[in-house]
C-alpha cells in the first residue's frame, strides 16, 4: 500500500462517526430521510413480503416506511404513467421534476426539484437487502411537491408545494401529514376537474400514523 507510512493509526470507528451508512448500527438513522452534507439519504429494508398491518410492520422493524420486494414503482412522463422495474444493483436516476409514486409506501406523487437515485442492494452474507435512496439536499427556492393525478384520466387533480430549500427538510413530514389529511377530508379536492371521477384517499409515508381509511388505501394503491 503506497500510503501505509502515513496512515492515521487509530481505529476508524473511533475517529469517523457513521462512516458507513450501511452499518447495522448506523442504518436506523436513515429509516426516514436524513440530510447529510449535499444529500438527503434514506434506507429501506427489503422484506420478502410487504407487511399488511401496522403490527406486522412493527414486528418486522422496517421503520416508518414499508419496503417490500414486490412493490411497484411508477413515474409519469411523456408516455403517461410507466412502471419502473426494480433490479438489484441497478441505480435508477430520476431527474428533477419527474412525478413518482411507489405503491403501498406513500399515497401521493412526489415531485422533487433535485435528482433522486434509488438502488436496491441485494442481501449480503448475514444481512438483509436494502433500498438506498439518495437525493440532493434542496437549497434556496428548490421545493418538494405532493400531487395527485386522476386514476381514470391522469389529469392533475391537486398539488401542493413546500419550499424545502429555504424551510429545511425537517418541515417535510408535518407538511406531508397536513397535505394528505386535507386532501382526504375534502372530496372536492379529490374530484377530477376533467372527468368527474372521485379519486381514492392518499396516505402518509409514515404507516404507523395511518387512519383506518388510509390503511385501507395503502393496501390498494
Amino acid at each position: 500500500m503506497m500510503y501505509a507510512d502515513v496512515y492515521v493509526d487509530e481505529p476508524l470507528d473511533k475517529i469517523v462517526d457513521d462512516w458507513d451508512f450501511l452499518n447495522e448500527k448506523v442504518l436506523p438513522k436513515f429509516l426516514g430521510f436524513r440530510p447529510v452534507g449535499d444529500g438527503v439519504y434514506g434506507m429501506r429494508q427489503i422484506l420478502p413480503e410487504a407487511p399488511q398491518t401496522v403490527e406486522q410492520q412493527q414486528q418486522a422493524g422496517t421503520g416508518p416506511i414499508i419496503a417490500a420486494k414486490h412493490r411497484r414503482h411508477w413515474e409519469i412522463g411523456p408516455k403517461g404513467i410507466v412502471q419502473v422495474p426494480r433490479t438489484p444493483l441497478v441505480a435508477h436516476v430520476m431527474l428533477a421534476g419527474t412525478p413518482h409514486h411507489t405503491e403501498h409506501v406513500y399515497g401521493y406523487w412526489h415531485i422533487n426539484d433535485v435528482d433522486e437515485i434509488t438502488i436496491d442492494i441485494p442481501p449480503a452474507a448475514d444481512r438483509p437487502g436494502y433500498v438506498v435512496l439518495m437525493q440532493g439536499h434542496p437549497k434556496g427556492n428548490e421545493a418538494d411537491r405532493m400531487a395527485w393525478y386522476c386514476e381514470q384520466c391522469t389529469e392533475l387533480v391537486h398539488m401542493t408545494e413546500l419550499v424545502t430549500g429555504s424551510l429545511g427538510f425537517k418541515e417535510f413530514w408535518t407538511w406531508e401529514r397536513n397535505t394528505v389529511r386535507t386532501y382526504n377530508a375534502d372530496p372536492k379536492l379529490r374530484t377530477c376537474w376533467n372527468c368527474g371521477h372521485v379519486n381514492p384517499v392518499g396516505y402518509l409515508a409514515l404507516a404507523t400514523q395511518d387512519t383506518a381509511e388510509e390503511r385501507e388505501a395503502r393496501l390498494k394503491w
Partner: protein
Amino acid sequence: MVSAAPTLSFDVDVTAGDGRWVRQGNHAIWSGRREPNEPPYVLHEWTERGVRPFPRRDDNAHMRRVPAGTPYHISSLFGFWIVNDVDALLLNAKRGETDYYMLVVGGRTDGLREATSLFVCPKCAARFGEEKFAGLQSGYERFIDAALKRVRGFNADAAQRTCPKCGAVHPPIYGFHAEADLPEERAARAAG
C-alpha cells in the same frame, strides 16, 4: 425543427458498468467491478493527521460519503487524488464472488462545476501539485482525460514528483481507466 421527449429517468447497471462516467442532471456516476483475483478498490481520504483508508471489513455492503472539499484516492482505480466541489459517495456491494462499486459525485444543483487533481506524498502526507479543472458540466470524462495528462507529465518528470515539503520522490502513478495504462502505469496500478 427537431424535438425530442426529455429524459426523465435512466438506469445505471452497476453489474454491467463499462467503466465510463455518466454525467447527467445533478450527478456524475461511475460503476465498476473487481473479481476475487484482483486487488479490491480501497478508498483513501486525506486528513490533517494523515491518510485514512476505508477498507472493506466484511462481505456486507458499505457506503461512504466523501464530503465536498476532501481529497480522496481509490487505490487500484486511480493513482492521483481528487477534490470535488460537491459530495461523493462510494457504494460497494458483493454478489457471488464479485465486488461491485458505484461512485456517485453530486447532489446539489449548483455543484459539480469543478474538480481538482492533486498528489499526496507517501512519506509525509503533504498535498502538492493541485490543479483545478472547471467545466464538469460538459462531462466528468473531460476531467479524467485531463488528469491522465497530468499523470503522464508527473511520471515523466522527477521534479514534479518531488515532495516540496520533505523532498521524497513520489513513485509513478496511474490514471483512471486501466485499459489506457502505459506499462509504467500498469505496474504502478498493480503495486497499489
